[in-house]
């Protein structure tokens, strides 16, 4: 097997590297002093010009007389992140990571490697969590720059227990990947799994953490996301607190959290910011939305194709009325509308924001109305399909809401073949599939099966915060308690008698 790496020539000295890299137009090789044959080389595209100018070239040029060896140069340089290196392979890699090298042309075996990577070039400044927005609570999200992301994490979990572990993946992209975890809380098992899976990974271009997600997931033949990707800092911090690990990937504003259970995908940070009654209510609304979204259209198809008896007598008239001119069976009708909605969604995602909004309205109202008037679909179905599309967007994580939208299609087909029986059969297969899934070796349906009643304090219902003082047992954390509740806070005053 020929890999891209093996096409690189073998570098004998630094001049070889310079010669090879100079083929690329963004590579600079400047001579600082022709007397000493002192040179500096770097990729323009990667380095911060200011660092080169202020911290490297100026001090060297000012003290040119005193210099005779590399060690002396190192002493002169005002920055710490320098290293003398003579390993050509390492040098060639570090240049690619944004370092600049200082060397004597006539002694091209060793050089000083100075980290001069730019931290601002090419990155967006703004870091709003746009795709997982919340009305209240912090809106800060990750950005493409991994250093910024690490800083954000470190700031929200300011403890020495938070450890970052750096790795390089992608044989061509050489992307920096960081595993973050809380030492003393996380079970070593998952950490090893993550390390091993990332290490064994062989893929050339890792351009986003979602790709990494697919490459290290337990089972890729499933519509369900097994690892939780998030752009919210608070969500990642919450996962870390619970004994999960977070994988950050350079160039990606999304962090991967693992291991996960299916219920994690229905948790919104807002659940914890609102009073527990409201938080629980909204969470249950979300589960209701999922059920509705998956089953509403299949039920329509099943009932209208096979089970007329189920329809109440008073609704019989309106339903038949709305369908009487539609020439297709309910299956075609439903698929037609569902696919229109998917078109709209897909187009909305591709188009610029403002055009997308307009298109949504045009599509939703005009196309829907026209389809009903042209007797392509019934208006009752239109309502059902629109509502179930709406309900699918209540899921707070994007990947899961995609999954939920997908799931109804097989169910629609099953319902059209075997009616209610097909629908129930589909649901059974769905549950079996979820039971068989695992995320980093943890059962995907976790607090429900295997049953952990203690974890349910933060499952379907969110209990008041003092009651969620235990980490999820399913993640087998090393320390179970998050904090200790010493006596509930009580109002000492008697409410009935205060004057």
């Amino acid at each position, binding site marked *: 097997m020929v890999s891209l790496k093996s096409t690189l020539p073998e570098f004998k000295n630094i001049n070889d590297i310079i010669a090879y890299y100079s083929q690329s137009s963004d590579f600079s090789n400047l001579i600082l002093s022709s007397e000493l044959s002192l040179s500096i080389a770097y990729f323009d595209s990667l380095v911060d010009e200011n660092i080169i100018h202020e911290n490297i070239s100026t001090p060297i040029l000012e003290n040119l007389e005193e210099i005779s060896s590399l060690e002396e140069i190192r002493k002169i340089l005002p920055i710490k992140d320098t290293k003398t290196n003579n390993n050509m392979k390492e040098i060639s890699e570090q240049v690619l990571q944004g370092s600049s090298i200082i060397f004597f042309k006539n002694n091209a075996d060793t050089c000083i490697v100075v980290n001069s990577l730019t931290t601002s070039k090419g990155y967006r400044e703004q870091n709003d969590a746009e795709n997982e927005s919340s009305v209240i609570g912090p809106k800060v999200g990750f950005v493409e720059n991994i250093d910024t992301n690490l800083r954000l994490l470190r700031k929200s979990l300011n403890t020495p227990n938070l450890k970052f572990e750096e790795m390089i993946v992608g044989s061509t992209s050489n992307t920096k990947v960081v595993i973050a975890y809380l030492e003393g809380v996380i079970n070593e098992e998952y950490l090893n799994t993550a390390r091993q899976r990332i290490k064994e990974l062989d893929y050339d271009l890792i351009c986003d953490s979602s790709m990494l997600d697919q490459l290290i997931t337990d089972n890729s033949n499933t519509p369900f996301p097994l690892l939780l990707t998030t752009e919210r800092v608070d969500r990642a911090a919450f996962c870390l607190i619970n004994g999960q690990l977070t994988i950050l990937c350079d160039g990606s504003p999304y962090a991967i959290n693992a291991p996960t259970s299916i219920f994690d995908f229905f948790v919104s940070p807002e659940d914890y910011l609102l009073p527990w009654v409201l938080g629980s209510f909204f969470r249950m609304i979300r589960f209701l939305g999922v059920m509705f979204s998956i089953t509403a259209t299949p039920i329509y198809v099943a009932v209208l*194709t*096979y089970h*007329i*008896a189920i329809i109440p*007598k008073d609704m*019989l008239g309106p339903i*038949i009325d709305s369908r009487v001119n539609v020439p297709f069976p309910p299956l075609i009708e439903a698929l037609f509308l569902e696919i229109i909605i998917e078109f709209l969604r897909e187009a909305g995602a591709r188009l610029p924001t403002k055009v997308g909004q307009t298109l949504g309205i045009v599509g939703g109202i005009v196309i829907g109305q026209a389809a009903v008037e042209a007797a392509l679909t019934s208006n009752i179905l239109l309502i059902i399909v629109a509502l179930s599309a709406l309900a699918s967007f209540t899921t707070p994580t994007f990947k899961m809401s995609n999954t939920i939208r997908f799931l109804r299609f097989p169910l629609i087909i099953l319902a059209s*073949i*075997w009616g209610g029986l097909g629908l129930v059969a589909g649901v059974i297969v769905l549950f079996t599939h979820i039971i068989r899934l695992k995320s980093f070796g943890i059962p995907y349906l976790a607090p429900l099966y295997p049953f952990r009643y203690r974890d349910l304090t933060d499952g379907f219902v969110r209990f008041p915060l003092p009651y969620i003082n235990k980490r999820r047992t399913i993640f087998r954390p090393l320390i179970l308690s998050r904090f200790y509740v010493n006596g509930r806070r009580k109002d000492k005053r008697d409410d009935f008698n205060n004057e």
Partner: protein
Amino acid sequence: MTSIMNKNNLCRRFVGIFFICIFISGCSRTTIIDDVKIIQSLGYDLENNKIKGTASYPVYVESMQESHPRKLFTSESNTTTGVYTSFSNQTAHRIDMSQLGSVFFSENFAKNGISDLIGNLNSDPNISSNSTLIISSKSASDLLEESMNYPPYFLSSVLDQSMRNGNIPLSNLHTVSYQYYSEGQDMYIPKMDINEKGLFVSEGVGVFKDEKLALSLNNKESLMLKILVDKLGFNSTYEFTTSDNKQLLIKIVSNNKNSHVQINNSEVTYKFKLKVYLKEQASKLSVANINNKLTKEIETNIRTELTNLLEKLKKENVDPVGVGELFRGAQRDWKRYEFYERVYPNIKFNIKANVNIVNTGAAK
């Protein structure tokens, strides 16, 4: 690597089998809602020893119409299910019975025995237990013909209304089959008629001996039957004349029945606690009157009416009240034949009615 290969093969096999299933299934079994004739009511008549069946169904032609024209199938056959066959010969669509609201049959048909009909209705799981059986005083086809002028399910809602707020005891396919298969009770089925103005009126119930119609009860008697057999859902009005010849209308709102059997003396005691509303203006009557005299009078009146009904039923040897059931529950060696031959004709009924006038309306 091999395991992945296996998995792929397996997946392919699954998908293959799935598509084969779709092929096998075809689409002949679908009953798409607008491609079936949804029968709303069925009617049975007896003509020249042949069963004449009539069925009404709605026709949907244009969308969003106020009311739908409905049509009738008619056909003749020797059996009650035989009529379906010729219904389906008359239409391009499949016949669907699952929304059947009511089944009518004429008195003639009922006198000839309805065990066949009940058996067939029960054996079809599509037919709801809540659908009603109705005896029509005119021929069933006339009744259905007339009902074409009304909204769908009008007949069953008229009956439903009179069961809830009127004098008809609760009756549907389930209760009728219950009584039919029960050893110690006879069937009763509500009756319906069209008056001169073409309006539907419920007029009492028909009482069966075994499977044949034996006796008809008028509205007042059927209210008494309702008091005797129904447990819930009382909202019936009852009119009676007081001793000083005043017409009074009362409304029975609740009924607490308690029955007791004395086998040795062949004696049955029914105790009723009725709560009633006085619908008449209360100022006509003094408080003392209401408390003592009027209450007594209503009690006596109801008692005599109930006794009369029970005696009438006894005389005709029909038992829609379920006296036989009471005896069966109390006697370990109860025999149906023996009871109705020997015990029932000589039974003695004791009735204790306790009336409580709860309210006299808003006017004082």
